[in-house]
């Protein structure tokens, strides 16, 4: 298929299941005394992070190191980029350093696509603007499957600022590919204009959707959106779309609560909800390493010919 992972829509059902199954096997490494496999020895993975994100970067770093790859971290702050170096020149520098894979996070949608045209290695999108965050969706699907035993026919509610969320876009694409049913819940202002063309349902009423959901995924809401009139106040947003313990009680017994992090405790998710047994927030982090190991292995672990 592809030598890059730029978007979940690039993944067929078989591709996606292969990643999840591989991650399942690689998850065992975390419990071993020697948390290392020799597979990517001699390969270089560059973390190219133009946006601050310690969590995601550390996750990719751990994944690469567990596969014995060399990791180079490049963060935009205080670097040549801060001095105005273009994306293209940064890419050419990485080429010269012999990067086998570039994991890139950027505030501009489509930046990984541009990068893919300028480097010979594999490009992994670690989040581009409001566009996609494929490994997040993969680790979310992995978590759901582990907790609930299946993905086919699973009813997933994604709640919050869908308009600006790359996590939402990636999840809608991937879950649909894997046979789950997605419902987006948000105020109308935070839904894209053409959301009716997306492969999912849409609702403005969180209370109505919760009893029919196996998974509730809460998206982080940003205070700035209030200033741009997407909703009147944080209080009103939280009242209508926040998952507090009262709402959590509406969920079926087996249902789980997810959040890509970082959370605004008390706004989109109650503190007690975040800490409840239903919450997968902590295990999502560990699962992230396994899933990213799987992605790096499948992109870099085989012959050059496929690339």
């Amino acid at each position, binding site marked *: *298929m*592809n030598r890059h*992972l730029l978007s979940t829509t690039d993944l067929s059902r078989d*591709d996606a299941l*292969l*990643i999840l*199954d*591989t991650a399942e*096997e*690689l998850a*065992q490494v975390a419990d*071993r*005394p*020697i948390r*290392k*496999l*020799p*597979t990517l020895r001699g390969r270089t993975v560059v973390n190219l992070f133009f946006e601050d994100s310690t969590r995601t970067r550390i996750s990719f770093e751990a994944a690469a190191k567990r*596969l014995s790859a060399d990791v180079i971290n490049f963060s935009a702050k205080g670097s040549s980029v801060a001095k105005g170096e273009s994306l293209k020149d940064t890419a050419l520098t990485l080429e010269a350093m012999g990067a086998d894979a570039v994991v890139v996070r950027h505030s501009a949608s489509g930046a990984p696509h541009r990068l893919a045209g300028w480097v010979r290695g594999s490009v992994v999108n670690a989040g581009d603007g409001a566009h996609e965050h494929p490994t997040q969706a993969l680790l979310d699907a992995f978590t759901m499957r582990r907790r609930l035993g299946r993905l086919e026919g699973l009813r997933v509610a994604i709640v919050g600022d869908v308009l600006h969320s790359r996590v939402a876009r990636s999840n809608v694409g991937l879950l649909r590919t894997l046979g789950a049913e997605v419902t987006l819940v948000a105020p109308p202002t935070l839904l894209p204009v053409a959301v009716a063309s997306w492969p999912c349902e849409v609702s403005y009423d969180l209370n109505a959707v919760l009893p029919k959901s196996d998974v509730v995924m809460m998206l982080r809401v940003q205070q700035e959106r209030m200033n741009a009139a997407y909703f009147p106040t944080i209080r009103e947003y939280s009242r209508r779309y926040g998952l507090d313990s009262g709402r959590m009680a509406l969920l079926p017994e087996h249902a789980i609560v997810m959040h890509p992090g970082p959370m605004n405790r008390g706004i989109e998710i109650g503190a007690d909800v975040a800490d409840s047994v239903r919450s997968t927030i902590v295990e999502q982090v560990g699962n992230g390493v396994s899933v990213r190991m799987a992605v790096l*292995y*499948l*992109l*870099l*672990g*085989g*012959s*050059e*010919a*496929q690339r």
Partner: protein
Amino acid sequence: MHASKPAGAATVSAKAAGGKIVLGEPEIRRALTRIAHEILERTDGGTDVVLLGIPTRGVPLARRLAERLAQVEGRPASAGSLDITMYRDDLRLRPARALGHTDVPPGGIDGRVVILVDDVLYSGRTVRAALDALGDLGRPRAVQLAVLVDRGHRELPIRADYVGKNLPTSQREMVKVLLEEVDGQDAVILGESDEGKARA
């Protein structure tokens, strides 16, 4: 990402493979029984033995051996699986492969006698990879190797402790093991291979 899957469960008749059957179901059965007895002899009754089958077909073989050990000794024997894909030395020659399942039985491998189980021993590279994998999992007291077929042409200093059948072959030939659990029948087939390069 594209992965070549481990050889699947499609049944291949000897005729379709263009070869001849060198071991049938009864011969395989007897060979495994003999190996089980040899294991018990050489490991002092199978104490502290963990059988780890190398996917794909090493796994059902390990299970069958474990059943025989349990029958003879009257107590259960440990069997599991050890996938060695991540330790292969030839990964870069083909697109990334899907992983097999690793299942180390409770009790682990530290201080125990691990018996690796595989269907065919050829170049020895698979076993070399398995030794590396074991090294990262723990420290066995000893590692032994049981194979159903040894077809010669070793490329590394590796030998099997228990062999079902020694089968001298030319590198132009291909040895295919079929097992009930995977392929629906038990047979060892010797035929012509197109690529002389398919090495176990």
